[in-house]
């Protein structure tokens, strides 16, 4: 296991551990509240504000997501917010997608200069977050009982998702959603929940609370695949992972408790605001790179 003093960062020793615990707490609240792993927010903070190297951040945050998502899935399962059938189908597409995405990241790294690579990754990140915020904000006027796009898709076979209360959902469509999520997640080194939650709402047609619980389940499975891939390259530090998990274990409980009390419409608006805020943060970092280089 990589010792604490070998982790390159702006802080060291107990200060670094304290900051990681606090970050874990904050991200844990988001995990319980919105069904996202939190890597989309955690990665930029760990790289820009804490100064940890990018490969170690990506691998460690994926391993951390396993723990945070496991707590969240267990909590949401008791509230019957996880549809196991759609979770397994989407994960079946997401896991090969994540492996493909990690390979795509390698090709981009080899084919582009370091500065252009950074610009491309951050621009992609920004685009995904703005799309997410727009999809969710657009959904604020939608009633939970409305049908999703996959129920209209004429691509057989069609399946009934009893746990989600949906009938006639296109199976290849569901697998394709998983593949796209996995490819994006693998390329950006995130769990993919930030994009999956809105897709489950708009494309699959799930209710907000079911989309949150099911998205967490898929994030858990795809993070396991991503961690194995990054762990093979030695890009995971269990000290970083455990320090963040101490905070997130408490944060997830707080987030899931708030989620159960909040109205679906309010949940969607808050989610859109968090995604937009992260997009602005990433855009500021992108502007900094463009000005410097």
């Amino acid at each position, binding site marked *: *296991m990589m010792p604490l003093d070998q982790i390159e960062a702006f802080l060291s020793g107990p200060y670094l551990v304290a900051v990681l615990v606090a970050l874990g707490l904050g991200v844990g609240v988001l995990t319980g509240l919105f069904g996202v792993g939190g890597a989309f927010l955690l990665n930029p903070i760990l790289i820009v504000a804490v100064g940890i190297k990018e490969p170690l951040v990506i691998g460690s945050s994926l391993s*951390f997501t*396993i*723990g*945070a998502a*496991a707590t969240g899935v267990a909590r949401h399962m008791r509230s019957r917010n996880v549809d196991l059938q759609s979770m397994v189908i989407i994960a079946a597409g997401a896991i090969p997608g994540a492996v493909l995405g990690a390979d795509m990241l390698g090709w981009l790294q080899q084919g582009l200069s370091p500065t252009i690579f950074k610009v491309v990754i951050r621009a992609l990140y920004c685009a995904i977050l703005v799309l997410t915020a727009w999809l969710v904000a657009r959904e604020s006027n939608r009633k939970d009982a409305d049908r999703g796009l996959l129920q209209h898709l004429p691509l057989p076979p069609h399946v009934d998702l009893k746990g989600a209360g949906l009938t006639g959902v296109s199976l290849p469509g569901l697998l394709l959603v998983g593949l796209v999520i996995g490819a994006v997640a693998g390329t950006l080194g995130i769990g993919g929940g930030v994009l999956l939650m809105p897709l489950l709402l708009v494309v699959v047609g799930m209710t907000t609370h079911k989309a949150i619980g099911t998205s967490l389940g898929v994030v858990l499975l795809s993070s396991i695949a991503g961690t194995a891939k990054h762990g093979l390259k030695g890009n995971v530090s269990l000290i970083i*992972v*455990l320090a963040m998990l101490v905070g997130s274990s408490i944060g997830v409980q707080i987030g899931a408790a708030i989620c159960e009390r909040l109205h679906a419409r309010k949940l969607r608006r808050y989610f859109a605001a968090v995604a937009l805020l992260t997009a602005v943060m990433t855009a500021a970092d992108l502007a900094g790179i463009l000005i410097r280089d």
Partner: protein
Amino acid sequence: LCAPAVCTIVSGWTAEQESKVVLKLLEIASYIVVPLAWGLAADLIFRQILRWRYANRDPEQQK
């Protein structure tokens, strides 16, 4: 215990190569199993705390 099993699958490997592979596999497994066990244990502990708090509530409040 693991090394002979790996040896029968991948014949031609030296004992050093085998132990390296086994150690790497154990290392990767720890990156998955440790956070997973932590997450599930944390949920179990919180559930017990909530049950305990509910059981010790004033009967008037429980109504």
